[in-house]
């Protein structure tokens, strides 16, 4: 649950729910000419070279295309170790690089259904980011 005072890791990547029961969504852009969808937002469609993009909210559910457990700490990262990240395919087309949460590493499986949540990276910090977690059966 997102609390007051939390700040997004970057502007324009996702919506922050303001009402109870509302789901967060990733913000993408869709080419009005060819229909291709991008995440994060792009100003030019690199498939048809048009600058005619509209903002679009992406599905908050996708499938886990692949995942890995990271054992060596990257320089700019200050969260817990080790941690899971994955590549999530969304129905609109884009695949999203994302941290994974709410799961035992052993229970992660390819092609499993995952859903978007907003969470902190580090407990002591107010910054929130998007993550995906397995959908509870």
């Amino acid at each position, binding site marked *: 649950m997102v609390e007051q005072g939390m700040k997004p890791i970057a502007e324009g990547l996702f919506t922050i729910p303001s009402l109870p029961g509302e789901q967060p969504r990733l913000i993408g852009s869709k080419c009005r000419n060819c229909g291709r969808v991008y995440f994060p937002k792009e100003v030019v469609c690199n498939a048809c070279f048009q600058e005619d993009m509209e903002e679009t909210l992406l599905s908050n559910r996708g499938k886990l295309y692949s995942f890995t457990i990271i054992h060596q700490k990257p*320089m700019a990262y200050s969260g817990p170790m080790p941690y899971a990240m994955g590549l999530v395919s969304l129905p609109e087309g884009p695949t999203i690089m994302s941290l994974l949460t709410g799961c035992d590493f052993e229970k992660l499986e390819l092609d499993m259904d995952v859903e978007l949540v907003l969470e902190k990276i580090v407990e002591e910090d107010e910054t929130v980011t998007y993550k995906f977690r397995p959908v509870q059966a």
Partner: protein
Amino acid sequence: MREVVILGIGMHKAGEFPDKTNLELGRAATFGALRDAGMEFKDLQSAYFSKNKADPTASIGEMMLGRMGLTGMPVVNLENDSCSGSSAFWLAYNAVAFGRYDISLAVGVEKLVLPPSMSPPPPPATEYEAALRAMGIADISTRAALAMRRRMHDYGETVGQFARVSVKNHKNAAHYPYAQRQKEVTLDEVLNSLPICDPLTLLQCCPPLSEGCAAAVLCSKDVAKRYQRGKNITVASAVLRTASESTSGVGLTAAGLSKSTAKEAYNIAGIGIDDIDLIELCDPFTVNEVIHYEDLGLCDQGEGGRIAGDGRTDIGGERPVNTDGGLLARGHPSGCTGLYQIAELVLQLRGQAGPRQVSGAKVGLAHLEGSGPVATVIILKR
């Protein structure tokens, strides 16, 4: 277009050389290439230098060449990630092939200012890129691990097949005096080395620190006759490409850009994979070698792991790959990797590769793919 030959190659060993300057590395390779070509410095007509992205040296080519001789020739410096050295070669090739100059020099040099773990990261291209770094999911190694797991799922590949690539390439490098890692490793050592990001282990990654220098002298075929060496190698094609719409949608487990780049190189050379005797390809992680087997046409999509496992790409196998150890074991000083590949092909095609010699090698291919993405494929023949 004119026929272009490689008259000479020169290398400094790849590795870590804290006591050497980039000028020392550069001189060793440049003078080595000139000696090999039977040429004097003043014969050079243009020069193309590549360096790694962390080296802030301004006009590194002019700085180096100015300490070897002052001739007024044009010098250009570039950075193109893993394709830096091959891009310098590509420019040198084009300069001669299209008739602007008769003799060109390509030099790649890599001198680390600080270990990558201590170097300040480059400015993020976007706010999203900065966010990925803070989330700890921006490292290139994670993409290799994601590709491994997906391929294991889709094609039934095993970690052992990936690890086998590392065993092969370390074995090859053990017989190459310019390689960074000259020690053989066992399958168990590879699998049980430090976990980086599961299932990727340390010995399935190229060395994190790598310095070195390699150079090549290119020359038009006609002018090459002045320097009779009796062992000239011809450039059959040199292609550099970046992503196009048709390759951008290809996922993690296949590299469409490398495939389209190779296709163009085969077309220009008028040959196919069956004509290639040996290959130097881009293996920063074991899985990349497996993927690029497919891109270059050694096998169909999904068969790369099996080929890695059955010895077909070993020296003595059907079509040896990375006979000098590849990025994994020869090392990957990204500023010059492409020119180490050229050097190895030239040695092999001349029959000078010693214990690594691929018998009867007539045609060789060098491939790299780097961030951008950018890819190069160069085909040489004797």
